[in-house]
């Protein structure tokens, strides 16, 4: 009887610690979002999202952060498109052309995991070095290329996981009808797995748009909206970072606003991709 109560006690202590942990994690999330909304919402005015910085903006005068919003969208869209160009064939290659369990596939996947783990500041320093070697200045193009490098492993590995779920029967049926592998890849596998692949691309986009360390030296920062690939480009994470380091409360308030906008964009993408992913599992053959 005594032993039983000890077991019960242990059980409830363990469970108690788990509830505390869970409370800490969800509490931290709530705290972060609440801080962001309370501090950021008052700064969200129409001029904030519709204007570029005017004269004296960094002293707290007129203007907004349209340059950073547009810049971030350009950078993340460009990076995602460029990464997509390589991710799609590579992930198809890993699943259609190379046997899933082949040694080569294992090596490539391990390298991708390694690339995923490389801190984005290292990509940033690498990108900057290459940029200087090519005689380029900090520009939209350099930022896009560096972001694509950051996003590439994330995108390929996610697409790889998606393609792994491809129902084998359908693929085999296509081969049985005499289709070649490339025909099967583009006419059978791609349409079947499209929502999952879109989700993977959006995941990488979300990661890219929030990344500051990689664009810090490569994309630069400017008050204008870039008109060519060679222009320097502002981004939302850096807008938060730079404005926060200014000594004026009005400017710091805009940093909170910029952070709120960035978070809203990232969360929207996250929710949208989740929604798309849930549509796949409903319609696809499993």
């Amino acid at each position, binding site marked *: 009887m005594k032993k039983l109560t000890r077991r*019960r006690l242990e059980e409830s202590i363990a469970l108690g610690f788990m509830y505390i942990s*869970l409370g800490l994690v969800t509490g*931290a999330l709530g705290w972060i979002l609440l801080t962001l909304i309370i501090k950021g919402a008052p700064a969200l005015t129409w001029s904030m999202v519709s204007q570029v910085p005017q004269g004296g903006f960094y002293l707290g005068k007129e203007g907004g952060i349209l340059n950073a919003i547009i810049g971030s969208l350009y950078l993340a869209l460009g990076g995602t498109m460029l990464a997509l160009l390589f991710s799609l064939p590579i992930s198809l290659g890993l699943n259609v052309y190379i046997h899933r369990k082949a040694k080569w596939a294992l090596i490539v996947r391990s390298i991708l995991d390694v690339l995923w*783990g490389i*801190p984005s500041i*290292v990509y940033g*320093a690498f990108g900057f070095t290459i940029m200087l070697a090519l005689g380029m200045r900090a520009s939209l193009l350099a930022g896009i290329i560096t972001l694509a490098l950051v996003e590439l492993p994330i995108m390929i590995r996610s697409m790889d996981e998606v393609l792994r779920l491809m129902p084998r029967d359908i693929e085999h049926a296509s081969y049985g009808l005499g289709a070649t592998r490339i025909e099967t890849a583009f006419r059978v596998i791609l349409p079947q797995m499209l929502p999952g692949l879109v989700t993977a691309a959006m995941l990488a986009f979300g990661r890219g748009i929030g990344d500051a360390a990689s664009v*810090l030296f490569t994309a630069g920062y400017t008050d204008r909206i870039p008109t060519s690939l060679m222009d320097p480009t502002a981004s939302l994470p850096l807008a938060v970072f730079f404005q926060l380091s200014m000594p004026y409360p009005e400017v710091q308030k805009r940093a909170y606003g910029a952070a709120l906008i960035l978070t809203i964009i990232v969360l929207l993408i996250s929710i949208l991709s989740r929604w798309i992913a849930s549509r796949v599992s409903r319609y696809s053959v499993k």
Partner: protein
Amino acid sequence: MDLQATQPQPTDQRAAGKILASRQRTERRASVLFKGLTLFPILIFLVILVVLIARSLPILQQKSLTDLLFGQIWRPSEGVFGFLPFIAGSLWVTGIAILLAAPVSILCAIFLSEYAKPVVRTTIKPLIDILAAIPSVVYGLWGVLVIVPWVGDSFAPFVESTLGFLPFLQSKNPTGYSILSGAIVLAVMVTPFIIAISYEVMRTVPRGYHEASLAVGATRWQTVRYVIFPRVASGLAAGVVLGISRAFGETMAVLMVVGNNPNIPKSILDAAYPLPALIANNYGEMMSIPLYDAALLGSALLLLIIVLIFNVLATLVLRKVTGKGQE
């Protein structure tokens, strides 16, 4: 693949043969392209490695490795490059962050995989994913607004007056921009990451183990402790190691709250200057000082190597535990 199965009419045969030949040509070209492109990730990795090594070579040739790694003084303008303050800063911040994050993360993962009802699990998992999706500058902003003032105004004076006689807890830094602030922010950032891996690892234990253990009268905690934990311990450790390597490379959030002071910290309430912050703060303006650029790329190389070792070790363990690659 056998494409001879179809039997075209004799008149169509030449046209059909042409189409077939062109399809096969496309297939051969695609095969070369798709297989060849899988070389691309390896190429990227090698290029990064080679470029970083080549660009940090000047400083590696002029100074001894021990001077660089264990030198305590950082004065680029005088040509003195001691990395120890930055390595120590990184170790402190990462170490404390993991001490805070690992137990919480693993307990959460145990709860989600062993205790939670499906309804609870499907509500909490997306919340944790949201936490993982928040950009690092936002974490940094939260740190500046919430954690730094708390450490500076409440925690540090309180600890100083009650436990100030202990080493590591003395406070000479009233600002709150400190190792502890960096570690707290970092802990919150890596928690969702460690939870996700630990959860995946816990799910690999077959249902039968739970059922057998519960059937002989074990409580759920006993099942976790004596049946599941021994099976997943190495996987959980690997998850924590991946968390460490993630934390080690995190730049912006830490940079914003850690104080960036290139001295070897003596207390968790001191400011520190981790490696990624060193690169981020000084890169771009290092051109005028000789060797500065090589020193900074050298620290990027150091960062890469440390993270690489952690990742490879963890991935090998995880592959053994889960039977597939890390996810």
